[in-house]
């Protein structure tokens, strides 16, 4: 194993199709027009010395090291800012160039500390490399004059010296090592799009400054790590590198946080992670990252991890550590007992959207083939199940239509119920880059999310709808498109059923659906909505991106259909730059759904009632499959309370914290006789478990994740599982203990089984992923290279289907007792229930859930900033501290659900989407009042959790030595 060295071409690639030929140091090379001389040289294998250039940002031309001579031109132009031209003859190394470069390096080094041996960047420093490359042997200016290096000089404090900024938990800023190449400033602007950094001062005084001469932690910095990656010296350095030293080998793998699915190089020393660096060739992230994937991996070695299996008879007992064999035997015995006693359908399983495709496949196989029922579900139930249903109905397949690169061709983006700068930050950066290049943005969201207006980005329209009125707003957009004749008739006639369109068009054209009529209850000004509709329909390539603000409603599925209608009506499907793009929450939600995690369908979205499909699996697995749909998660909990559902195997999901109406979830879990939790930590659900099977992290196993763009990415093991077994091995051994004749030596064999049974994965093998890096399904004989954009020539279902979308108000209404609407969401630094991110330094940004409330609502209730407030709904009540902000509209409050202490889900109700039972997290009628601190319920919860987490120590039983 070696350290993967990515070639830095100095400037970004040109996308021009036309090529030009030139000669560099005697080598003839052909490159796309618009390529820089520097990049062309590197492509010819000639590295021109450079400091301020790197291919993640545009050329800047400030370091004066990359100068070249070009025949027929005067002077020594910078190769990074000089584009190639036909017939150009370039010399990169002449006596004149050597002298200039050495002179420049002398100046740099005269104001740089000479502590190379003890410097964290030793071995990975471009300044050091360039000093070597230009043959610097002497610094004629000495080191005694004005400088930024020495804290004290001539017995006095040096006013130019600035101490290290160590405020960020993950990296340090050491101004004394800065060469002011401004790569960090440009990375923050061009790659991340936050504009947190600048160069303050002029001439010798200039230096990098976060915000207005603030510390990194107090500035707008979002800790994405792009600046650290861009820095050529030790000025910006990962604290882990400072602590451990330089890595010696690296392995490319996939981030286990959000659905963007960024590729990273895990840079290692032995089995210790030194740092995670985004991989330039990663097709989802193109070399970018966010604070979670880049830095928040410390949970993998956190002391809270449970490494031994544990069993207990009652949930009030302390845990007892047992061997793996004992744990498997216990679960097998209990599950068989329950099935004997209460029927075959009395047990089930939940697959994890955080685990690999292979692991998910095995869990659903265990349920269907081993338990003999279809009681398997996944956390997509509570997030994107309406996407599966809605897009399946409209297009014939349950997936986003585009790849992330598509956004580079988009002219108008509609963003609905998603907050990408927090939830999908790397995609947000790519979106912002496109917006800065001129694309237009329409935001449909009750909150004024960052993208509505932030540095160099401003939405053309923000439709601040009342929570729960999505369908009315989208149907009103359709009304404008139809009644103003903005639809794409040619596309509809060719790709959809014209009579279905006419039926739908007459439905949406009803004046009751007009923006003017719906404004009364949606709260969206009609004129603003009309403007948005016109822009989307006629603004060029229109793409819709949406999140859980669409799906987590009682009309979630209807909203997804309304989105599909809009895209079809305007012809925005089937080419780069357009489409319908669900932003998936967890790393492998797409994959978990693909792998047959839903109770009604086998892998590849094929209904369990289909004889032919069942036949494929029955032959291979040697069992008869049950043709009836199984229980969904909310149904399992209901059935548990009714007494017909008694045991469950939950892999990597914390339903007690993440699912709505905590009290109901608790009642369901308490009613079961054998709850098996398979997780990294004793999560909240484990408080009600009888068996705990320790899990492994993404760093400890092989497999694949499928991201929101259907991209199948490899996950590669970089360290041994601390618990002894990778998660797929745990399921395998559990199946074996239950008498199933399974044998898999490696996850690649599971993928082979997936490919053999699932047409959209037919050509996928680990060898292929090794060769191609990644591939987007469908990938089969018809599409050997995968499918970046779907529905190119026709919809998967044949004709696209227009479906009427009648707005039905949710029954969750505000009234005198609960006058405010609560909506929930996420924050950048935390992930989902926070089980991982709370166990990292990310708590520095978000140590507690806060209630966002508008100043008017706060004032009426006598609530001040940071006050404790009680949040109550008809389901329950909790207390947390308030943040007063105009980001939320009057009448709306907002919180996150990252911390178990808050348990925001004790507030949410049991209303669900009509089609899929996806919970209505986004709308709860609440009251907010001043409070002194945590409620009695929170205190009881905390006490129960602490009691439940006790582990009996063996030592007490052993004789003293």
């Amino acid at each position: 194993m070696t350290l993967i060295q990515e070639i830095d071409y100095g400037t970004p690639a040109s996308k021009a199709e036309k090529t030009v030929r030139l000669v560099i140091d005697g080598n003839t090379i052909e490159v796309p027009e618009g390529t820089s001389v520097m990049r062309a040289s590197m492509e010819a294998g000639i590295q021109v010395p450079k400091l301020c250039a790197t291919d993640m940002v545009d050329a800047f031309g400030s370091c004066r090291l990359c100068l070249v001579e070009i025949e027929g031109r005067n002077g020594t132009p910078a190769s990074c800012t000089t584009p190639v031209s036909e017939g150009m003859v370039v010399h990169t190394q002449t006596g004149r160039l050597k002298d200039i470069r050495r002179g420049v390096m002398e100046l740099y080094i005269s104001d740089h500390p000479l502590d190379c041996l003890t410097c964290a960047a030793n071995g990975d420093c471009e300044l050091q490399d360039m000093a070597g490359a230009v043959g610097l042997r002497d610094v004629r200016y000495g080191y005694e004059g004005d400088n930024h290096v020495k804290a004290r000089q001539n017995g006095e404090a040096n006013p130019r010296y600035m101490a290290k900024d160590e405020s960020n938990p993950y990296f340090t800023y050491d101004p004394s090592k800065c060469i002011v190449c401004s790569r960090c400033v440009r990375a923050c602007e061009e790659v991340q799009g936050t504009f947190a950094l600048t160069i303050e001062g002029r001439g010798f005084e200039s230096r990098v400054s976060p915000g207005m001469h603030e510390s990194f932690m107090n500035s707008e910095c979002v800790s994405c790590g792009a600046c650290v990656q861009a820095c050529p010296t030790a000025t910006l350095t990962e604290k882990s590198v400072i602590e451990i030293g330089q890595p010696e080998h690296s392995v490319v793998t996939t981030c286990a946080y959000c659905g963007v699915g960024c590729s990273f190089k895990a840079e290692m020393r032995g089995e210790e992670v030194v740092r995670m660096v985004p991989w330039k060739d990663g097709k989802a992230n193109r070399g970018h990252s966010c604070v979670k994937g880049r830095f928040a991996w410390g949970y993998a070695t956190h002391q809270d991890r449970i490494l031994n299996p544990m069993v207990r008879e009652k949930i009030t007992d302390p845990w007892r550590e047992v061997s793996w064999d004992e744990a498997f035997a216990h679960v097998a015995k209990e599950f068989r007992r329950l099935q004997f006693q209460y029927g075959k359908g009395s047990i089930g399983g939940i697959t994890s959207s955080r685990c690999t495709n292979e692991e998910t496949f095995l869990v659903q196989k265990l349920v269907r083939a081993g338990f003999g029922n279809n009681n398997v579900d996944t956390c997509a139930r509570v997030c994107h199940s309406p996407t599966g249903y809605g897009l399946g109905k409209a297009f014939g397949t349950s997936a986003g239509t585009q790849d992330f690169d598509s956004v580079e061709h988009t002219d108008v983006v509609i963003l609905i119920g998603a907050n990408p700068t927090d939830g999908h930050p790397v995609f947000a950066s790519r979106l912002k880059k496109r917006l800065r290049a001129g694309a237009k943005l329409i935001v449909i969201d009750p909150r004024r999310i960052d993208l509505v207006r932030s540095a160099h980005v401003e939405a053309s329209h923000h439709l601040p709808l009342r929570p729960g009125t999505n369908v009315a707003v989208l149907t009103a957009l359709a009304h404008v498109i139809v009644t103003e004749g903005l639809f794409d008739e040619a596309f509809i006639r060719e790709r959809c059923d014209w009579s279905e369109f006419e039926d739908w068009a007459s439905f949406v054209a009803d004046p009751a659906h007009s923006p003017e009529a719906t404004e009364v209850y949606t709260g969206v000004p009609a004129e603003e909505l009309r403007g948005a509709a016109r822009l989307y329909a006629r603004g060029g390539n229109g793409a819709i991106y949406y999140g859980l603000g669409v799906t987590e409603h009682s009309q979630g599925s209807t909203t997804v259909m309304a989105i599909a209608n809009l895209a079809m009506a305007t012809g925005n499907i089937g080419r780069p730059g357009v489409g319908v793009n669900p932003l998936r929450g967890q790393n492998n939600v797409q994959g978990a759904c693909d792998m047959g995690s839903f109770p009604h369908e086998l892998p590849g979205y094929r209904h369990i009632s289909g004889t032919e499909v069942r036949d494929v699996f029955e032959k291979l697995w040697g069992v008869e499959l049950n043709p009836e749909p199984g229980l969904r998660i909310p149904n399992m909990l209901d059935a548990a309370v009714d007494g017909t559902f008694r045991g469950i195997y939950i892999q990597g999901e914390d339903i007690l914290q993440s699912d709505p109406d905590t009290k109901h979830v608790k009642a369901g879990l308490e009613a079961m006789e054998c709850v098996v939790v398979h997780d990294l930590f004793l999560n909240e659900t484990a408080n009600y478990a009888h068996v705990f099977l320790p899990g492994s992290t993404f760093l400890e196993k092989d497999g694949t994740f499928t991201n929101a763009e259907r991209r199948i990415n490899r996950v590669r093991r970089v360290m041994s599982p601390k618990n002894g077994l990778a998660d797929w091995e745990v399921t395998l051994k559990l199946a074996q203990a239950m008498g199933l004749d399974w044998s898999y030596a490696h996850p690649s064999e599971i993928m082979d089984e997936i490919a053999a049974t699932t047409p959209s994965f037919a050509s996928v093998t680990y060898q292929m992923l090794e060769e191609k890096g990644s591939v987007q399904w469908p990938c089969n004989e018809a599409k050997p290279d995968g499918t970046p954009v779907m529905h190119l020539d026709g919809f998967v279902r044949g004709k696209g289907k227009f479906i009427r979308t009648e707005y039905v108000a949710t029954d969750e209404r505000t009234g005198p007792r609960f006058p405010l609407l609560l909506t929930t969401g996420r924050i950048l630094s935390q992930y989902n229930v926070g089980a991982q991110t709370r166990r990292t330094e990310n708590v520095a940004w978000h140590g507690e859930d806060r209630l966002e409330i508008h100043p008017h609502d706060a004032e009426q209730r006598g609530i001040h900033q940071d006050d404790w407030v009680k949040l109550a709904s008809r389901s329950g009540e909790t207390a947390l501290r308030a943040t007063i902000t105009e980001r939320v509209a009057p009448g709306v409050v907002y919180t996150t659900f990252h911390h178990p202490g808050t348990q925001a889900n004790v507030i949410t109700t049991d209303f669900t989407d009509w089609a899929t039972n996806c919970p209505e997290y986004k709308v709860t009628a609440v009251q907010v009042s001043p409070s002194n601190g945590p409620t009695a319920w929170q205190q009881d919860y905390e006490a129960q959790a602490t009691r439940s987490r006790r582990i009996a120590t063996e030592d007490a039983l052993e004789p003293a030595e």
Partner: protein
Amino acid sequence: MSPDKLRYQANQIATFFASQPEAEQIEGVADHINKFWDPRMRTQLFEIADQSAEGFKPMVVAALEKIRRPELAKGSQ
């Protein structure tokens, strides 16, 4: 699940299909319940509806004859 919740969820499905073209309404409700409700939920649906159709939307009642009646006893699926 509680009879009220079951009735509520069945009616929610009917509410969606009420806005669909008339020919697809009853078929749509029945098909949806057949596809997504596990047998014990359908058993419970019939247990309640066989006694009294009160509280169910007419479209749910009309769809009943097209909904597959589970043969096996409760919990055995």
